[in-house]
């Protein structure tokens, strides 16, 4: 292991160079969008040129015309609420499933997981009717419900897998000490679930944040729109003016990218948790 420090391995250098180029290609579209967002309409004409200055008017247009603050608020509301709910009901449901061995529980486990195979389109049209009949059209609550539902399979998968790795002795000890079922769950098991909770958050947060279909179907009032649909409508509105489009794209991608860069370790752990244990 130490020998690599003292010898320059030519193969590694070439590989390093190739990968550096590859990473640039991978990041190019994003860099292009960010750079182009600072170009004036005239500068846009020359696609290969760099912007001459930090032209901020595109951002102003993007921010105001799309009502960006409202979009952001709505997305935050839906994401935070959905995440809270799924953590609670997901962990609650996973506990009996992982601790009981009867056929019923195995069936429930697989039943929940089967949700991963049901495509949204299969039930989309009756779901639309259901939301309408429940009076939930044009409510952010409808988005929360759909988001929670979509997260159930993977959340149960992760929590169940994780709880199974917690030694039962801890719970048995608590029982001997006189703790009831629920007390054991809250006092002993829940605190141990933190790593799994992180995984659940990481795995679910982006799909909820980026969900396009549900708000498209269920929300038509502009003030209740979330980011994905708001941006979609904004882009449809100003079809030849790419400046504001790049500006709004940059504004939107800053959020998950910043989140990711600061919490990288947790992201990687979260993604692999479900995969390697599954």
């Amino acid at each position, binding site marked *: 292991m130490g020998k690599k420090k003292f010898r320059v391995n030519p193969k590694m250098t070439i590989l390093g160079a190739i990968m550096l180029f590859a990473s640039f290609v991978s990041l190019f579209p994003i860099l292009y969008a960010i750079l182009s967002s600072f170009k004036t309409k005239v500068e846009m004409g020359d696609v290969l040129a760099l912007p001459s200055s930090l032209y901020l008017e595109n951002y102003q247009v993007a921010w105001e015309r799309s009502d960006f603050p409202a979009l952001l608020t709505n997305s935050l509301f839906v994401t935070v609420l959905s995440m809270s709910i799924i953590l609670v009901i997901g962990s609650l449901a996973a506990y009996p499933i992982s601790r009981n061995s009867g056929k019923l529980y195995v069936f429930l486990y697989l039943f929940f997981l089967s949700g991963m195979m049901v495509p949204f389109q299969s039930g989309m049209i009756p779901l639309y009717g259901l939301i*309408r009949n429940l009076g939930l*059209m044009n409510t952010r*609550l409808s988005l929360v419900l759909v988001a929670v539902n979509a997260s159930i399979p993977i959340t149960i998968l992760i929590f169940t897998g994780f709880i199974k790795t917690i030694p039962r002795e801890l719970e048995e000890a608590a029982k001997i000490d006189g703790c009831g079922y629920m007390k054991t769950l809250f006092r002993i098991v829940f605190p141990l679930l933190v790593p799994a909770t992180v995984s659940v958050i990481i795995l679910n947060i982006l799909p909820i944040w980026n969900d396009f279909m549900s708000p498209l179907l269920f929300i*038509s009032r502009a003030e209740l729109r979330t980011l994905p649909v708001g941006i979609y409508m904004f882009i449809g509105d100003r*079809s030849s003016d790419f400046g504001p489009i790049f500006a709004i794209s940059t504004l939107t991608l800053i959020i998950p990218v910043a989140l990711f860069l600061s919490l990288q370790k947790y992201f990687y752990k979260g993604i692999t948790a479900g995969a390697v244990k599954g």
Partner: protein
Amino acid sequence: MKKLAIVLVIALTAVLFLPACSSGGSPAPAPSEPAAAAESAPAAESAPQTEAAAVELSLLTWDPDIQEVCAEINNKFIAENPGVTISVDIIPGDQYETVLNTRVLAGESPDVFMYFGSSANKMIADNFWGKVTDSAFVSRLIPGFDDSVSYRGDVFGFPMNASGNGVFYNKDAFAQAGASVPATYAEFLETCEKLKSAGIDPIALGGIDVWPIQHFIANFVATFVITADPDYEMKRINGDITYAQTEYPAMFTRIMELAQNDYIARGSLGITHDQSVESVANGSAAMLLNGSWTVGQLQEINPDGNFGYFPLPNDDGKYTITAFVDKAIGFSPTSAHADVARKLVEFYAEPAQAKMYLEAAHSMPTLTDVTPDISADASVEFAERLATSQVVGFFQNFMPNSTYDEATKGVQAILAGDTNINAIIESMDRTFDQDKASVILPE
């Protein structure tokens, strides 16, 4: 502790269904919202309305270019009707019908909204719009333009402006290439060739959106299919003919020839309508087979440019012009303020406002007593031709959505290199036979 937990769990389950028990209203919007209370409050139980009671009307449209003039008109209305606020919402054209349907069917119809004039009968047949038969403007409508907003003797909306299809071209680009306005289709092809040799894209098209392709097609349908058989639509509905027996196959072949000869700008299917208009405005392309609203757009981008109009001619020099009500506006009968909403619709039809709108939109009037000052060459040329030509409605009128879509997709495919025209005709015929029950016939 156990009992508390049980209660908690059951409560969690119940809480998720609480909204269903309420009156179905949406949760209060974020505190920074202006008083939108009027929209969600149940109409019946509001406190006694005084003169200055807050009335908020929602206005829905798809065209961002008319925002300014609508704001002006709305403000005028507000000045004359204190206590009213109007919020305008814009949904992109491609999603407009879907979103509108969603809202109306969910009981959340906008108070006032616009719709595509050429298919406004959909709004009527499904009761999306309320009657305006006794409104003052009805008697002022130019005969012919009231058809698209009428049904069984009643009038349902105000046709705001009329547009027509044809070829809108850059005169300077033509001069540069030594091209002249064609009188027959053969001359049209020659013109294209001259432009191409001069390094100018003959035809520009914004193909990433669907509607510019539909207007492109409309030009061909009018000139080739309808000129050859003006009654083909009714014959098709009665089952006397199929699309295969109309001029459609030949028409698609002509479009294919245009594509194969590179007369349509490369990369069209990836650019927007606005980008295509820009290319004609600055002369890198010469012609747009689109609608008369293009004139306003061209002039705005290039105020010093010279733009003209001619209808697409067929082999014998004959042509038919598709003219239609571009936008129609109506009010929702289920609105909490239906009377005020109706007033707004009528307001748009008053001569002063109508003139304002038509001049801003560079469009043709639908009312007998309104003559907007339109000076652009192209608009004048268009008006002249319109006055002396055979005029028909938009070709979508008597087709189910699926058939209309098959024709549109067919042309996209042709432009993308597909040569199987029979498959397109077959799809059109098949979907028509399956879905013809959805075609709304005028009565």
